[in-house]
């Protein structure tokens, strides 16, 4: 025989002392003469006692401290937000006139004045200060004065709470991610400024640079020979040699544009460039590399990414076009900027999953990029890659898919390459 659910519920409530006394008496009488009900009560009492017998866990000593640390962080974050420049805005005379939320904040306050700043016109300046305090724009004296006022003025405290709430709500708004190309636009502007600066320097030192360039080329050739010879003596048979790198650099200077696979929009840019291209092997080589990267991107970039890549190349093709026939260093700089942008874009696309560059192709692109550096730098032998110090005191330098072992004594300087996020290793000239 089973009890009906209502009776069971009553027994449960009776155990908790939640039944009215009259109902409790009736239930007790019924339970006393009904064995099934009595059994049910006993069972439920055991269940309750089992649950209530669970040993409470103790709060760790640092629990409250942990909470308060987070609270303090929140307060500090609010203060930090308020510290940001340009936050302080001059509020209109009646900022809450159209804000029902603000009106609600003062609802029911009989002392509330019609201007929304409290019962006393004297409160108006404090309202300004409350806003400024939120932005941490008050001096200590002003803060102290405001604090004293807040202690005495409930409506201003309400205003303060409201402003904090608004600030919290604004902060809680979902953040949107920056659109593709956002950074590119910024770096474009930065690059343009940097380019102007470089051009100015180039103009100033033009005469001097002509001679330095010639001397630099001679020095570079001598350095190639010296370092290649030294590296050959140092490397083990199974490692790539610097001699190989020399060959690679030499071949890069002769490299041809990958004409057959070139994409439509990449072709447009490079053709325009080719039409006015000077005969300099350096520029020709850079042009070829530029095309190679354009083709790589066109092959892999899709949708908006592809459109973005196209914009970059169109922009830089135009710049290069303007530069051709002028200063060759300027052309090189532009090409390099383009290469860096391609590199950055490729990284961004890879991270966003919009460009799946196979590893080998990625390395190839890296290698192409490295060759830019090799060709463009005239004052010394420079590797741009990842350097790892080995136990024997030498450095293993990975440049693209090439590896070079260089003696520590041959390294004059290791810097973080500004534009490539890799290491720039300047090799010392040997006597």
């Amino acid at each position, binding site marked *: 025989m089973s009890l009906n659910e209502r009776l*069971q519920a009553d027994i449960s409530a009776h155990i908790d002392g939640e039944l009215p006394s009259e109902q409790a008496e009736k239930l007790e009488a019924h339970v006393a003469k009904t064995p099934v009900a009595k059994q049910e009560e006993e069972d439920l009492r*055991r269940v309750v006692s089992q649950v209530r017998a669970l*040993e409470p866990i103790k709060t760790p000593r640092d*629990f409250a401290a942990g909470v308060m640390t*987070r609270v303090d962080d929140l307060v500090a974050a609010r203060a930090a937000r308020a510290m940001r420049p340009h936050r302080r805005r001059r509020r209109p005379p009646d900022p809450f006139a159209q804000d029902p939320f603000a009106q609600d904040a003062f609802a029911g306050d009989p002392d509330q004045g019609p201007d929304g700043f409290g019962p006393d016109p004297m409160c108006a300046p404090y309202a300004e200060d409350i806003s400024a305090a939120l932005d941490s724009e008050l001096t200590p004296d002003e803060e102290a004065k405001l604090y004293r006022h807040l202690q005495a003025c409930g409506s201003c405290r309400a205003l303060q709470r409201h402003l904090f709430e608004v600030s919290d709500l604004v902060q809680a708004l979902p953040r949107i991610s920056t659109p593709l190309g956002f950074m590119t636009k910024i770096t474009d502007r930065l690059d343009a400024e940097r380019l102007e600066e470089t051009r100015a320097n180039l103009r100033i030192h033009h005469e001097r640079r002509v001679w330095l360039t010639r001397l630099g080329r001679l020095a570079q050739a001598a350095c190639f020979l010296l370092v290649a010879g030294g590296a050959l003596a140092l490397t083990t048979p199974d490692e790539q040699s610097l001699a190989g790198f020399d060959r690679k650099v030499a071949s890069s200077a002769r490299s041809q544009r990958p004409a057959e696979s070139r994409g439509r929009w990449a072709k447009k840019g490079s053709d325009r460039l080719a039409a006015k291209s000077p005969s300099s092997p350096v520029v020709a080589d850079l042009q070829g590399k530029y095309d190679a990267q354009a083709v790589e991107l066109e092959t892999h970039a899709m949708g908006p990414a592809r459109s973005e890549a196209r914009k970059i190349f169109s922009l830089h093709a135009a710049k290069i076009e303007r530069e051709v026939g002028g200063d060759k260093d300027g052309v090189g700089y532009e090409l390099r900027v383009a290469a860096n942008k391609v590199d950055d874009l490729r990284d961004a696309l890879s991270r966003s999953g919009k460009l799946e560059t196979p590893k080998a192709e990625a390395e190839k692109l890296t290698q192409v990029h490295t060759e830019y550096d090799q060709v463009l730098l005239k004052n010394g032998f420079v590797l741009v890659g990842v350097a790892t110090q080995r136990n024997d005191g030498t450095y293993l330098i990975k440049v693209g898919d090439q590896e070079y072992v260089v003696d520590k004594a041959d390294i004059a300087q290791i810097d973080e390459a500004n534009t490539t996020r890799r290491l720039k290793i300047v090799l010392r000239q040997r006597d």
Partner: protein
Amino acid sequence: MELDALDDRALVARTQDGNRDAFCTLVERYQERVLNLVYRRLNDRDLAYDVAQEVFFKAYRALSRFKGDSAFYTWLFRITVNETISARRKQMRHDRAGSLDQAGQDGEKRQDPPDSSFDPSAEAERLDEQTMVQKAIANLDEDLSQVILLRDIDGRSYQEISAILQIPLGSVKSRIHRGRQHLKESLSKVIEQSQ
């Protein structure tokens, strides 16, 4: 005046006025109850710490909007219930495979060591019972576990539970009854042994 001597309403008002220590007093006042409520439902001590801290942190963030329409503890326990539900969902999603068994062991292994006067076999039996009860509570449906925890773990009256969960008094009564029926079935072995 000592903060400890102030009632919840006064402490809330002071917190709203920027008194950090007033809120710290509120945390210390309710931390154990909140933590145990969360722990009984999640059956994972570390997770319970995190969730309980989150409860207080969220309470602090929302305190400026607390208008005192209900008692502070009612409001706080409502946050606790909501946070626990949310944590429980995540827990079920991430640890669907055997998490409760593991969590049960977690509760078991963290029991304070018994002193030398304890009978080891009786102690083991007691821990087994506790683990079973704990698991039975953790396995209850959400709406049933809430009322059982608030009633039997935190000692809230039906009226208070009704206010915290914002459900009618009759629903509290029927849910408690159904929760206990489920527990009775789950713990039938324990009950038989104790008879």
